[in-house]
């Protein structure tokens, strides 16, 4: 075959048979109806949904203050804080969250606790940095309502408290609320986290089930990956009273689950049920480059409520220097909208992190600072996305 002779191959593809489904239409309808009816039946585990920022705001803010009074100021410093990172071979300055009026997503201090978060004119950040050795981050996630995408969230807890306890009580610490985002999968599940062994033992109640379908199994795996990969956990071991194996439908029955880091581009998910958006990871091909991932940030997937984080008219080119990604912007005069600009910066930071970069330097930005970010300096990639409030379950 001559090189470049695509027509011959296209003709062969076109000649492939029009495979036809022979199953009767009514049979299909009957199967699907019964499946949907099954799913509508009540299940034993509590069906809970994720929090809306506006509902329950005052309750959450109050409890957060009770639970973590000292953390708030450290997560949201009141003054510009730029410190030398002595561990960096390049002497890069680490930019922390600065000038955040304690509204890093849902975090609220006393000074702003009476403000309505919807009307607060200061844009929200959708990422979080852990800048204090006395605290640690809990990572978790829920599914969107179409089981297509994972919506991560995170919160900070004191370092001297048991991480396993926090992970085992996420369901009662977050104000999940019906009909907002997908259900939290791990109610009544406890986790024993052994960071040294790089292993988590997941203790499952008898009633624990995963609905049929590979989407549910994939979401189950993706959420566990989101929860524990940040701790370099390599595998989950399943335990239950009667049977150690867990039935993951399309994956089969397994007793252990190896966790694998995937590549992601971060876009914006606008919940159809609330006035709020989240940064969500969109899986990328393993062969993809960071450049391809960043270009994907310009595409909307409106039917799934997923939106671009880099505006269509903003162009850029990239290069890198070891662990630093350099993004040179063009046409960014149009980024007058501060929130849009911050979301773009944070989506690029998180995407760069997924591809192994530690810092991002923005060039040709027209302005020196946007929100909390000093654009004249390299910016460290964040530690987590979508920080939310937590509730003290004993309060």
């Amino acid at each position, binding site marked *: 075959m001559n090189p470049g002779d695509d027509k011959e191959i296209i003709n062969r593809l076109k000649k492939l048979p*029009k*495979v036809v489904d022979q199953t009767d239409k009514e049979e299909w309808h009957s199967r*699907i109806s019964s499946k949907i009816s099954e799913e509508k039946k009540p299940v034993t585990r509590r069906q809970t949904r994720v929090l809306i920022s506006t509902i329950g705001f005052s309750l959450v803010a109050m409890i957060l203050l009770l639970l973590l009074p000292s953390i708030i100021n450290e997560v949201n410093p009141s003054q510009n804080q730029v410190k030398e990172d002595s561990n960096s071979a390049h002497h890069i300055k680490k930019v922390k969250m600065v000038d955040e009026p304690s509204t890093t997503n849902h975090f609220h201090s006393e000074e702003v606790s009476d403000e309505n978060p919807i009307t607060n004119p200061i844009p929200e950040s959708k990422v979080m940095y852990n800048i204090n050795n006395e605290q640690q981050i809990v990572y978790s996630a829920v599914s969107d309502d179409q*089981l297509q995408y994972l919506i991560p969230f995170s919160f900070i807890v004191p370092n001297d408290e048991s991480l396993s306890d926090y992970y085992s009580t996420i369901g009662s610490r977050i104000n999940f609320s019906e009909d907002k985002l997908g259900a939290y999968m791990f109610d009544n599940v406890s986790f024993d986290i052994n960071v040294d062994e790089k292993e988590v033992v997941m203790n499952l109640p008898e009633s624990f089930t995963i609905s049929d379908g*590979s989407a549910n199994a994939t979401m189950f795996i993706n959420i566990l990956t989101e929860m524990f990969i940040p701790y370099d956990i390599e595998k989950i071991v399943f335990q239950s009273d009667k049977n150690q194996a867990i039935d993951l439908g399309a994956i089969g029955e397994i007793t252990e689950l190896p966790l694998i880091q995937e590549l992601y581009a971060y876009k914006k998910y606008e919940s159809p049920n609330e006035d709020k958006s989240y940064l969500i990871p969109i899986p990328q*091909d393993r062969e993809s480059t960071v450049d391809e991932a960043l*270009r994907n940030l310009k595409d909307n997937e409106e039917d799934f409520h997923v939106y671009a984080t880099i505006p269509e008219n903003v162009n850029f080119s990239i290069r890198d220097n070891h662990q630093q990604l350099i993004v040179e912007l063009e046409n960014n005069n149009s980024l007058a909208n501060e929130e849009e600009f911050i979301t773009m910066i944070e989506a690029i930071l998180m995407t760069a992190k997924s591809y192994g970069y530690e810092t991002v330097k923005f060039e040709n930005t027209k302005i020196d600072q946007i929100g909390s970010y000093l654009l004249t300096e390299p910016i460290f990639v964040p530690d987590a996305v979508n920080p939310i409030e937590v509730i003290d379950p004993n309060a």
Partner: protein
Amino acid sequence: MKIAFDKIYDSYHQDLYRFIFYMVKNKEVTEDLLQEVYIKILKSYESFEGKSSQKTWLFSIARHTTIDYFRSQKRKRSHILNLFDWSEKGDYIPDENPLPEELVMKSERERQIYSFLDQCTVDQKSVLILRFIQSFSIKETAEILNFSESKVKTTQHRGLKKLRELLDHKEGGDLL
């Protein structure tokens, strides 16, 4: 729900079935995945906002569902065997299924191209199926895959190149 089901079935069922079948090449799996696609569609049918055409919406759900299936299979294989090096093979899903009856009577040339499709990446395979087996336009393919039109063209070019290399290698081997 019956009205929505009828509408989707009458307009798109065979096309959706064919797309999923060529992606996974197993009729039982195709039926399971298509059932999953219908459930997702019918659950969110009311909330479909019509920002893209219904056709591209349905196919993008089918594609997401198929990719979820591939990921679950990848996990299953790595868990059970740990022999298959995915990092080198990328997203290549080896075909271990029997030929569908529709293909048994076809020539060796068609059977080869059917088999070699699995050695393309999932993206390349999706583009080739949508473009040349389903006869979608570049624009429709781009909408379904959430690619830019130029990315569809690039992926199509790479997929065709991959098939050409495989066929050249096979035909060269046969001559020896």
